[in-house]
């Protein structure tokens, strides 16, 4: 298969970026999207040009590192997969593919398709944990947890922290990411203890870092590679309200 690639190139956060056009040929349909990028980069190196910088690591859809906006969609046109899990058979032979970095005020570009998502770490540092010390805990089976609750907690915990939600949202809100963590812990008895404090602290941090407000457009859920449901946002709102009432 052959493709024309329109790729965003930008030297660093301060520089102006622009699209450049490249061609790749003889790509097998079983090649993954990122392998296709590897091939392009190897060609560029041989031409003495700088390869396109992009984030990736596990290439199995679990580390959350890959982050490309492809043909107008975060993680490309396929549903419920990360960029690294897309295969070229999903694209039309001969077509043009447009590739951009996440576009979000809270995620400045580092180079080309690489952005700084440190803001997500900061939100979790504000309260996305249970305050336990090593070795000061009860037996794992001391608190039975209904299977349904554990499963729902796991559904929310599947978030890979990729940033597609904020990058997709027209308001630039990180609500789905925050809700996934709050909700995952709120579903468990261990997590309930600090529930109210956690919700408040994380939402406050999100606001402080310049993420926008959630207006429930649902765009985030549609683009989330892990299909995290916006129902978690409703749960976060309940937790948040409860916290406010306690004040």
């Amino acid at each position: 298969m052959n493709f024309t690639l329109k790729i965003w190139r930008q030297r660093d956060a301060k520089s102006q970026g622009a699209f450049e056009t490249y061609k790749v040929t003889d790509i097998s349909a079983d090649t993954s999207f990122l392998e296709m990028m590897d091939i392009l980069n190897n060609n560029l190196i041989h031409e003495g040009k700088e390869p396109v910088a992009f984030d990736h690591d596990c290439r199995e859809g679990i580390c959350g590192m890959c982050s490309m906006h492809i043909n107008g969609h975060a993680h490309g046109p396929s549903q419920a997969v990360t960029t690294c899990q897309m295969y070229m058979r999903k694209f039309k032979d001969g077509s043009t593919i447009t590739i951009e970095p996440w576009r979000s005020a809270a995620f400045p570009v580092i180079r080309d398709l690489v952005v700084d998502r440190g803001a997500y770490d900061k939100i979790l540092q504000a309260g996305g944990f249970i305050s336990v010390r090593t070795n000061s805990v009860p037996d794992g089976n001391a608190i039975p947890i209904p299977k349904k609750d554990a499963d729902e907690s796991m559904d929310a915990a599947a978030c890979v922290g990729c940033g597609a939600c904020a990058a997709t949202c027209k308001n630039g809100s990180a609500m789905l990411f925050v809700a996934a963590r709050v909700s995952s812990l709120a579903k468990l008895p261990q997590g309930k203890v600090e529930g109210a404090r956690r919700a408040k602290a994380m939402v406050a941090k999100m606001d402080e870092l310049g993420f926008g407000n959630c207006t429930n457009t649902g765009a985030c859920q549609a683009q989330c590679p892990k299909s995290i449901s916006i129902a978690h946002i409703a749960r976060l709102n309940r937790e948040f309200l409860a916290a406010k009432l306690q004040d």
Partner: protein
Amino acid sequence: MAYKLDAKTPAGPLAEKWSNHKAAIKVVSPANKRKLDIIVVGTGLGGASAAASLGELGYNVKIFCISDSPRRAHSIAAQGGINAAKNYQNDNDSIYRLFYDTIKGGDYRAREANVYRLAEVSNLIIDQCVAQGVPFAREYGGLLANRSFGGAQVSRTFYARGQTGQQLLLGAYSVLNKEIAAGSVKSYPRHEMLDIVIENGEACGIIARNLVTGEIERHGAHAVVIATGGYGNVFFLSTNAMASNGSAAFQCYRKGAGFANPCFTQIHPTCIPVHGTQQSKLTLMSESLRNDGRIWVPKKMEDVEAIRKGAKLPSDIAEEDRDYYLERRYPAFGNLVPRDVASRAAKERCDAGFGVNETGLAVFLDFKTAIERLGKETIKQRYGNLFDMYEEITDVNPYEQPMQIFPAVHYTMGGIWVDYNLMTTIPGLYAIGEANFSDHGANRLGASALMQGLADGYFVLPYTIGDYLAKKIQAPKIDTTTKAFDEAEAGVRARIERLFAIKGNQSVDDIHKRLGLIMWDNVGMARTKESLEKAIVEIQALRKEFYKDLKLVGDNNSFNVELEKALRLEDFLELGELMARDALNREESCGGHFRSEHQTEDGEALRHDDKFAYAAVWEYKGIDEVPEMTIEPLEYEFVHRAQRNYKD
């Protein structure tokens, strides 16, 4: 000068060693902990759990990783589960049984005392993770669920769907975040360690490169912990994440740390087979699939050919025409034999011509029987995400047709030599997780790497490091303007400049792929004297070529992934040779190390305990010099070393 290795194994009965040791080692008072700095390199299960626990104790911790967030370390990709000796299933599991299975699974090439301690703290890990909010799978009664993994006859593996590593890492990362917020840990993402700094024979800091700006930085500490994972990517194609590497470990080796059993590599039996030449990475299909999946190839060559041509579907092959070769050869363990055994058995069938894809390098992993027995829904609940992933990659629906699988490089049991305290041969330098060599002998059992990483980080290192740091309570802050730091930094800068100056014609990937092929063909699943000697010569030649013909673009003063990769490849080019040398020296077969000259009549690994019951510890002598080997004898006080038997 050969090493004087002291494993510091405590005396006394096996079950009392760790308690006795803990009682005997020194502790540091809270007031003094505040004055001590520790560097942790790596944020996988080992590094994150260690840094969080050390921060909680009151030390000042700096933690480094390559990715943009600590949460993305390679540990995140572990699928299947984590072992513990809880005996929640009442199937007569115990600390001793987990210890015994691990020692036996490792083909009697690990230290008894270390492995026993690992089994002993395994139960604490589960408690710890539950308390952090890790959503482990549960039964309808609300209690924790288990599944079975290879090399065990009990069900002791805890899991969170097919994302156990992710959930455990998010747990460790969350307590790390708690400590970062509290100010006891400072995080340096997108920073790569490029050298270890040694002063007066003791580790005192690192040189790191800020991967965004290219700045070379100095960081001092009273102790340095290496938690940088395994070096399987020396093979280019492996199941490891793309940035996984052996460089931090190799820098320690260059500066004098012993490197133990480098040839012990795990080839995982259930990976998606290689297709074409454009691939950058191999995908693992979790070992948990062997709970319900049955491995087979056709009995008849005509069926093999028909399947390859597409004239027959695997599901067309009648039961009696299928060779469930693991069940046939190993009735007691069946599809759940350890990985090294399963991988070699697949190779044996494919070498005999029964490989089921066009390259002849694939076997089937079939869920037909399980779906008939349990229903599609149950299978979907257990493995849904793995099945989806398989279909996404191969375009084949595994609910209808069996998966095709083949062995691939997965894990490295070898690593930096450490004593019982997890300290390397360099005082003040520790190694934990996959980066060290300690607990898995010549073959690691499934679901035991996560256990080891967290055991080291939560429950062992935070105690043992105190024994060393107690001697440092009077020490001032580390001065990073000393000659040792100057030299280390100058060395790093010179290395980088040298690579840019080559201006050759081959990209990093071009050369790395060639190294990978040399390794896979000669230092892979079956090794011989000839293949290993050939590998050494070829790697040396390739290394020369690298220094003459590397093409490196961009510059050092900004984000430059090619430079990162080039530096890692440079180390792999030496590490690959070291692996071949170690494999050449070890004239026996054990665990994942199979020397074709040493096998039993029915093709099983043949150990030579009289000659090789030791850890081989290598000492660096210079880039083109032959390293010196010192042995650490492995004395077995408690377990009788037997020929491993998974047949009955």
